[in-house]
């Protein structure tokens, strides 16, 4: 009873995050798809990884990607996202080059 978790319990945020293995879907578009060699990937990671670290992982495998880092924007679950956004299980992360629709 005393230890029952509560959605409102503030103490949860004081507990250091426990590292867990999660799976995320990763998408590349346009030029980035060509540089990454594929448009879609599924990757196992840990839940403290950020979008920035995820990109770095691919950039290490495909050095050409690293050159485009400053002109890439990231999204998480179809919303533009900051590079320091941590990943969560089941996330769909996409790396997007400058858009040129119209």
């Amino acid at each position, binding site marked *: 009873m005393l230890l029952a978790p509560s959605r409102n319990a503030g103490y949860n945020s004081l507990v250091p995050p426990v590292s867990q293995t999660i799976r995320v879907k990763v*998408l590349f*578009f*346009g*030029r980035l798809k060509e540089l990454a060699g594929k448009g879609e990937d599924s990757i196992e990671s840990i839940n403290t990884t950020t979008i920035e670290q995820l990109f770095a992982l691919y950039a290490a495998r495909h050095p050409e990607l690293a050159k485009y880092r400053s*002109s890439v*924007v*990231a*999204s998480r679950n*179809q*919303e*533009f*996202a*900051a*590079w*320091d*956004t*941590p990943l969560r299980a089941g996330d769909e992360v*996409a790396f*997007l*080059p*400058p*858009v*040129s*629709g*119209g």
Partner: protein
Amino acid sequence: MATLLQHDIFQLVREPIDVAALARHVRAPEDGAAVTFDGFVRNQSHDRPTLYLDYEAYESMALAKMREIGAQLHEKYRIHRVAMVHRLGRLEIGETSVLIAVSAPHRAAAFEACRFAIDTLKRTVPIWKKEYFEDGAVWADGELPPAPVATPRAKPAS
């Protein structure tokens, strides 16, 4: 949120866009004006003759962003209906790649909303075009969409 979204159209298509049908769709008896933007494939890019274009999209996000633009139009302008359709795949010279039609009781709102819609689409909707020339192909220069710089919890207090 807008109240008339059920009459709005947001689509990604692979077939030719029926410009006239969409322009008619937004017209209603209570309106007095409709403005249509018809974007189509130019025969050259930076003075190089273009053979054709190939468009691709992050489809689920592109549609979500198009709907967001539609909602913004209803919030910002006194308009009635919106139709916004973008074509994907291979497009030949002269074919319509994007069509935006906006109706309104009065013309000023329709003009302004249509302009806002195409400008915002070009800046924020995840669609890309590759331009094919006699001697190769290039990804068109685009615009980097504005994205959050840091997650809120990471922002320093100010």
